């Protein structure tokens, strides 16, 4: 039953509160040693998945398998997982040391060993000298580290992190992202990280599971979900994107054409058999990132779209160009160009050619 490399399997897991379905038949594999992020807007069911795995709530249907065995009946305190809670949930009446050592103390670990492991864990999260303090005497970032040390110390098979960085300010959050990732690499424990922040997910995860309305939209590497979205939701979820509706043409090797109001676009379908399998003549969307778009009259590979520039917005490192397609003025097209010190030669009202390489153009079902 056990598959090599798979720690945890969710099979058709669903969760209802009364008549309201929070999760619809979720299938998810958690690989041993990976950093997997569950990403979704609030209400997408991402925290519910974490709570189901942690044992804080029971699934309404389906199975959660650890090493092939169902853990539905396993109580919270017997599951080999530890959680970093959203508001840390540190014990306010215990010192940092006692908080970190809690998991060992309740298991009756000898004092000397507990002291050593607490010291090691505090060292790992760079809180060595603060062991005697109380949680109320720590900053947000420090509390975060205590919560992490407390979860790590029991050497769990899986660490569940419930939006642990949400309460921190932007700069500290960036720092903690790098820090968390480096800790994960160091201790090689599987991390399941829940967040609503796309950048955070992309920065940290080995794999991202994108969720919406209780369903998994796509599971893949950050690169995959960013450049090869599987659904319209995913295509719209990660920053700005170009989406052009149209009718699917036939598959031609690794490419597939789509007929749109702004002309025929040729998109890549390699590595996306489910897209290649969509019926010809059906509706779909062509998707391409603004940064993949080139502007100019030079001979470019791939698709060319004539467009009139509506707005040029300087944004520091990059300049955003908004344009309307000539064939279909309602179709907004965006291009993100690298800014140059001498400024851009583009001006409003100018007609230019947008070039989109075939490899950068993808399809999603409409």
């Amino acid at each position, binding site marked *: 039953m056990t598959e090599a490399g798979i720690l945890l399997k969710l099979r058709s897991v669903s969760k209802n509160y009364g008549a309201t379905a929070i999760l619809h038949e979720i299938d998810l594999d958690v690989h041993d040693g990976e950093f997997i992020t569950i990403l979704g807007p609030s209400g997408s069911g991402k925290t519910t998945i974490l709570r189901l795995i942690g044992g804080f709530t029971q699934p309404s249907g389906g199975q959660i398998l650890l090493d092939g065995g169902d853990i539905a009946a396993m*109580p*919270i*305190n017997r599951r080999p997982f530890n959680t970093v809670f959203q508001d840390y949930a540190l*014990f306010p009446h215990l010192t940092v040391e006692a908080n970190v050592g*809690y998991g060992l*103390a*309740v298991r009756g670990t000898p004092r000397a060993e507990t002291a050593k492991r607490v010291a090691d864990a505090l060292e790992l999260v760079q809180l060595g000298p603060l062991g005697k303090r109380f949680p*109320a005497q720590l900053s947000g970032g420090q509390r975060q580290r205590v919560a992490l040390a407390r979860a790590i110390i*029991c050497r769990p098979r899986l660490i569940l992190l419930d939006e642990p960085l949400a309460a921190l300010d932007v700069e500290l959050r960036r720092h903690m992202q790098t820090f968390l990732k480096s800790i994960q690499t160091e201790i090689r424990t599987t991390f399941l990280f829940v967040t609503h922040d796309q950048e955070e997910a992309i920065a940290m995860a080995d794999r991202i599971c994108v969720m919406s309305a209780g369903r998994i939209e796509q599971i893949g590497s950050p690169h995959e979900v960013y450049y090869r979205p599987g659904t319209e939701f995913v295509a719209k979820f990660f920053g700005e994107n170009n989406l052009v509706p149209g009718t699917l043409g036939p598959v031609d090797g690794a490419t597939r054409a789509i007929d749109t109001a702004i002309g025929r676009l040729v998109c890549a379908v390699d590595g996306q058999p489910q897209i290649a399998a969509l019926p010809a003549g059906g509706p779909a969307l062509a998707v391409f990132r603004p940064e993949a778009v080139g502007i100019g009259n030079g001979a470019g590979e791939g698709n060319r779209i004539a467009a009139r520039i509506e707005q040029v917005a300087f944004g520091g490192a990059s300049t955003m160009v908004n344009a309307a397609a000539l064939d279909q003025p309602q179709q907004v097209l965006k291009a993100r160009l690298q800014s140059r010190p001498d400024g851009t030669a583009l001006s409003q009202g100018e007609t230019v050619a947008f070039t989109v390489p075939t490899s950068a153009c993808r399809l999603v079902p409409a």
Partner: protein
Amino acid sequence: MSESIAPAGPNRLTPWLASFAAFVVPFGFVLAPMALFLVYSFFSVDHGSIVFSPTLSNYIRFFTDPVFLPIFWRTCLLCFTVALLCVLFAFPVAYFLTTLRGRSRYMLLVLLLVPLLMSYVIKIYAVRSILGGNGMLNRALLATGLIDKPSMLFVFNLNAVLLTLTVLLIPFAVLPIFLSLERIPKALRHASADLGATNAQTFWRVTVPLSLPGTLSAMSFVFVLAIGDFLTPQMVGGQSGFTFGRIIYSQFGTAFNWPFGAALSVILAAVVILAIRLGGRVESSRGRIQ
């Protein structure tokens, strides 16, 4: 800047009136009488009339007369025991309340507090009829065959005072404990279980320590109410159930020695303030719930 925000006209006086009321009412009706007691405690009585010249004789009498100190300590011990018993009984009740959800939780809480609306004297009578030589408790014990003649262990003595005070003051202990239990975030119990603790371990390592501020303020609350009570010992204490409160009462009543009664009241007030401070101290040093 504040000019433009503050309402014009007589409304401006409202905050002043409010502060006036907030400070003057407690001062006029609480602190001033207490100060008066303090002053009176330094006077003396000669042939039934008060001598208005300062003396320490009342305090000297209290500390040297062999009657008062033993009763004082006995009363303190009695009230401490009452406080302890109340907390021991109230804790499971309060804990049970926190396990209830929604309406049933507050319905039960209100039911628990209903006795507070009843007249204190009536409640004492009710308990007295249970405890008496021919009372319900004795008859029940006889009926079960545990004893073969009515027990006098809890009839008109200090035990009766102890039992009556405990029964009457339990509601006062439930509320602070319930509130402190309710304030413990659920996430802390989850975190405890998540880290491998059994329910019992979570209870002893998380729930009990975090409810300690409420439990101790409940204790000091009950202690203060019990030590100031003279009615209960009067009605169920009989000859042997003599308490400090009854002595003070007798000084103002039968003995007509107001200055000595005032001195005893000052000593009682000191004990009460100490008890409240002790309860509050733990609250401020341990109540570190974020």
